[in-house]
């Protein structure tokens, strides 16, 4: 029986067991305390949950990075308007987990910055950020885990009756806009839920100039059927399909664009109790992700990842003062890669003859010392992963102490049949390059939450994290069209290891004034990142086929540290509510061998003033971003910029539902804003001045 079949069978057994076992439980009266779902701005916690609609109101764009970039320590690694993966406290790519529920998103956005996150932020019901001990339940991520939660992840049915939430917006610069329709019907024991989202945008402008190929088109449909089998058991089936097409505003003369599609199907079983376990959520998901990379209409790249996973999370009360969360996950994914000029409209198996394997690659290795390849850049790979994690919490009068651990075991199987014969890794360079490998990573985290007084609370976590290098970090050896770079992976990369210290403090000076401080210090013994490859004279190395800069995958000692400060003031004057906030972020990434880590967010500060009266909400924000001061070797300099945004919103209650009208003005000064953490900062600055208008109807 194949691993795929085994996982499917295990999923079926597990889900049936959940349902059957649940039926046998004699229910007692249990008070289920729901975790808070609303953001409490004046609180610090290991898990912070945000209402997606609130994030959408404040967001300047449509990506997950745009939605979260207003949070302390969060930036968006933008790559045009379609792509914006969040970076958290300087952590990017594989160091930030993005999950749907608990399952890591089946996309390739961590692999490369041009690959969009495989979801539209607007489609999530809630977005949650987990860090420290809480994040270990989902994996080992220095930057924590961002969980997008859909309707299927709610342990209850939707609000009874018919619900409709629809909105429409338009953008003066890109001419088009967004449409979202969310409809649900729920009765006593069942529900049907449908969520549709569409985003269309022509290329935008910056500094009065059009940014070529910055157009995007995205469409997603998500449906959920749920029914309560017993008072204790709720089952939700879901399906999701997404299509995205977007230009890559790079410097090539020919248009580069990406066509992405993703399908997900799954079942979630919620048990309030299962024996002594509480809040059991078991999910089985299969998903298929695919994207094409085109240049001038030619299919130059193709990536496909099929994933299935089975996971279960539950709580267990040890005693009155101690409780623990557990999570188990089995995950399998198969990644296929094609990268050949005009040949990647489908996958092919490479020819095999009696010719010597890897001859051309060997010639380059002998000549240049680098095994340059012009074939498919990495073998197809299959990963089988097991995650076991717990987070135990003990409560005291003024303290909460957490201890979390996880173990991740992974079998990685490369399959080189896709690689052209002449570009296979030659035996004399690495005889077991395509070997299977099984590795494990163990991570621990200790958290301490303490209330020093009624006004002063701190939260500290110290974590030791191990991250297994991704297949791409190990195997990629070749050109990447969209980023116009040659990436040189490292087959012998060790696990990434780090000690992460996070300290958050909240001082509630008065009922109206609060200060929040975040300090972090991450010490990596093997920080894996892409660095420009230089020769003995310090000159950039270029690949011999396209003359593109070579970026080498390195694992080095590094330290990343920074702080975030947030001051909030709120005052009511009669029926007017006035709020002011000031946010400041400082971040530095240093290599132990000297020099800085590339693409670290420059210092920045944001002042926001808000005014609420009746149905009106007005907001003005001013963001200052410093020039790049701590640049890595061979990293290009980025000038600072200012961003002035205004918005006004009016909500009107109707006899049936409510109507909301809003207007936003973004980048009013039309500053040319180059995002230092973007690979495309030169060719794809952030959008210039634009006016957005929207309407929302809720029933």
């Amino acid at each position: 029986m194949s691993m795929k079949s085994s996982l499917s069978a295990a999923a079926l057994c597990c889900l049936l067991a959940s349902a059957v076992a649940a039926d046998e439980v004699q229910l007692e009266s249990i008070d289920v305390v729901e975790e808070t779902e609303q953001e409490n701005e004046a609180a610090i916690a290991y898990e912070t949950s945000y209402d997606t609609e609130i994030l959408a109101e404040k967001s300047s764009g449509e990506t997950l990075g745009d939605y979260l970039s207003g949070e302390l320590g969060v930036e968006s690694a933008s790559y045009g308007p379609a792509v914006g993966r969040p970076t958290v406290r300087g952590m990017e790519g594989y160091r930030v987990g993005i999950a749907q529920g608990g399952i890591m998103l089946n996309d390739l956005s961590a692999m490369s910055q041009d690959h969009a996150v495989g979801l539209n932020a607007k489609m999530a019901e809630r977005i949650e950020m987990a860090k420290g001990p809480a994040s270990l339940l989902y994996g080992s991520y220095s930057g924590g885990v961002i969980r997008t939660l859909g309707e299927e992840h709610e342990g209850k049915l939707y609000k009874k009756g018919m619900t409709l939430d629809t909105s429409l917006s338009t953008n003066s610069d890109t001419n088009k806009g967004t449409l979202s329709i969310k409809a649900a019907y729920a009765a006593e024991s069942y529900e049907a839920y449908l969520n549709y989202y569409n985003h269309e945008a022509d290329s935008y402008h910056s500094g009065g100039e059009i940014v070529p190929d910055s157009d995007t088109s995205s469409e997603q449909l998500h449906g959920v059927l749920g029914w309560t089998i017993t008072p204790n058991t709720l089952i939700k089936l879901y399906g999701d399909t997404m299509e995205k097409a977007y230009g890559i505003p790079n410097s090539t003369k020919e248009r580069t664009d990406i066509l992405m599609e993703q399908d997900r199907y799954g079942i979630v079983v919620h048990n309030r109790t299962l024996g002594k376990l509480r809040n059991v959520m078991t999910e089985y998901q299969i998903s298929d992700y695919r994207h094409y990379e085109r240049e001038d209409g030619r299919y130059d790249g193709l990536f496909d990842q099929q994933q299935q996973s089975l996971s279960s999370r539950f709580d267990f009360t040890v005693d009155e003062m101690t409780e623990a969360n557990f999570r188990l996950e089995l995950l399998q994914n198969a990644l296929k890669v094609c990268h050949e000029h005009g040949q990647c409209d489908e996958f092919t198996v490479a020819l095999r003859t009696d010719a010597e394997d890897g001859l051309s690659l060997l010639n380059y290795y002998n000549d240049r010392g680098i095994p340059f390849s012009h074939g498919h850049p990495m073998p197809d790979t299959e990963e089988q992963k097991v995650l076991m994690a717990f987070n135990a919490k003990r409560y005291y009068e003024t303290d909460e102490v957490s201890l979390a651990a996880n173990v991740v075991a992974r079998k990685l199987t490369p399959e080189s049949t896709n690689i052209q014969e002449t570009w296979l890794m030659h035996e004399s360079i690495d005889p077991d390059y395509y070997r299977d490998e099984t590795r494990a990573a163990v991570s621990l985290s200790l958290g301490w939450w303490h209330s020093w007084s009624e006004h002063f609370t701190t939260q500290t976590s110290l974590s030791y994290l191990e991250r297994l290098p991704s297949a791409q970090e190990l195997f990629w050896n070749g050109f990447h069209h969209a980023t116009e770079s040659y990436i040189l992976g490292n087959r012998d990369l060790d696990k990434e290891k780090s000690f992460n210290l996070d300290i958050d403090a909240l001082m509630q000076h008065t009922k109206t004034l609060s200060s929040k401080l975040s300090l972090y210090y991450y010490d990596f013994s093997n920080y894996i990142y892409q660095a420009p490859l230089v020769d003995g004279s310090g000159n950039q190395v270029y690949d011999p086929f396209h003359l593109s800069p070579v970026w080498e995958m390195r694992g080095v000692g590094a330290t990343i540290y920074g702080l975030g400060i947030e001051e909030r003031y709120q005052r009511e004057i009669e029926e007017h509510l006035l709020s002011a906030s000031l946010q400041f972020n400082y971040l530095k990434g240093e290599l132990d061998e000297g020099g800085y880590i590339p693409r670290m967010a420059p210092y920045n500060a944001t002042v926001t003033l808000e005014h609420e009266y009746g149905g009106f909400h007005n907001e003005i924000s001013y963001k200052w971003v410093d020039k790049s001061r701590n640049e890595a070797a061979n990293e290009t300099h980025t000038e600072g910029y200012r961003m002035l945004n205004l918005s006004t919103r009016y909500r009107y209650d109707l006899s049936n539902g409510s109507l909301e009208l809003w207007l936003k003005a973004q980048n009013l000064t039309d500053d040319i804003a180059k995002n230092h953490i973007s690979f495309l900062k030169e060719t794809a600055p952030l959008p210039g001045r634009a006016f957005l208008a929207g309407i929302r109807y809720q029933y």
Partner: protein
Amino acid sequence: MKLKTIWAGMLLAGLMVGCGGTSTSENNTQSESSAQIDLPDGKTLIFFDNNTSAQYLYDTDSETYANMNIETENYDMTGKNGKLIVWNHHTAAGVDPKIVMLRDDFSINEGNVTHNDLHYLGHFHEDNNEKFFAAHSADEFDPDQNASEKKLGALDALSAHLYEQEEIRMEIEEALPSSEMLCNFFVFTHDHDHEEADTNETEEEAVPHIALTTSGKVYVFKEGETGLEEAQVSFSLNGVTECQESESSIIQNGDHGVLIFSAQTQKLYLVDNHGMDFHEHSSWDISRFLPDGFTPTDLAGIGEEEEHDHEHEE
């Protein structure tokens, strides 16, 4: 409903109201509409199977092929054997790229080309501002049948070209490593006239010589002080492990690339150097764009872009 279904429905509707284009096919001509082939634009390629005499012309712009073995045409090769060469004929009017089907036993080392040594000589003809491939028969070059001076002069120029090619062949053979034997070759001709303020001097660039060996490896040479020198790392073409001159071809593709045909793999390889080193940029299975069962042994191709190449004055 899946989004793909929605789009498929819309596409269908679009087609029904006539948004889609239509294509017509002539006799012996087929349209490749199921998948985009995307061979380099502007090329007319002739594929010939010396075992069966089957011969097809493929137009990379229209992505259509046509059977050339039509009794009434000069280029009909039914029942004949031959070998194709590409010859950039320099005339007073400019460069006129030609495809010549020589007899397969012809060797320039045995004397100049005569009408007895060729089957046809083809090039682009123009009619109503439309260019199409047409061929002159061997008889048109027969002095006994009143061949014009111009035509006889063309044969002399062709002979000179072939002699020059033989000299280059020997130079490359000398430059190859002792473990390799030459199978086929191509030499770029990049003499760009740079008009400067006071002089009209010609700057000769180092001209790449592409050599395909009998083991299927590609070597690139450039003129050095003491003869040809390896210009870059050699590489192999995927799947090619053996090569014979009669079952391979190399033709020019723009200023910086060649198309290499291998009968062994039945593939066409684009080798170019849009950066620094020549490399296998793409490859196409012949069966993707030519009729099933056709397995050519030879290829020649010309395109309008080659007319812009500046060659050595002969």
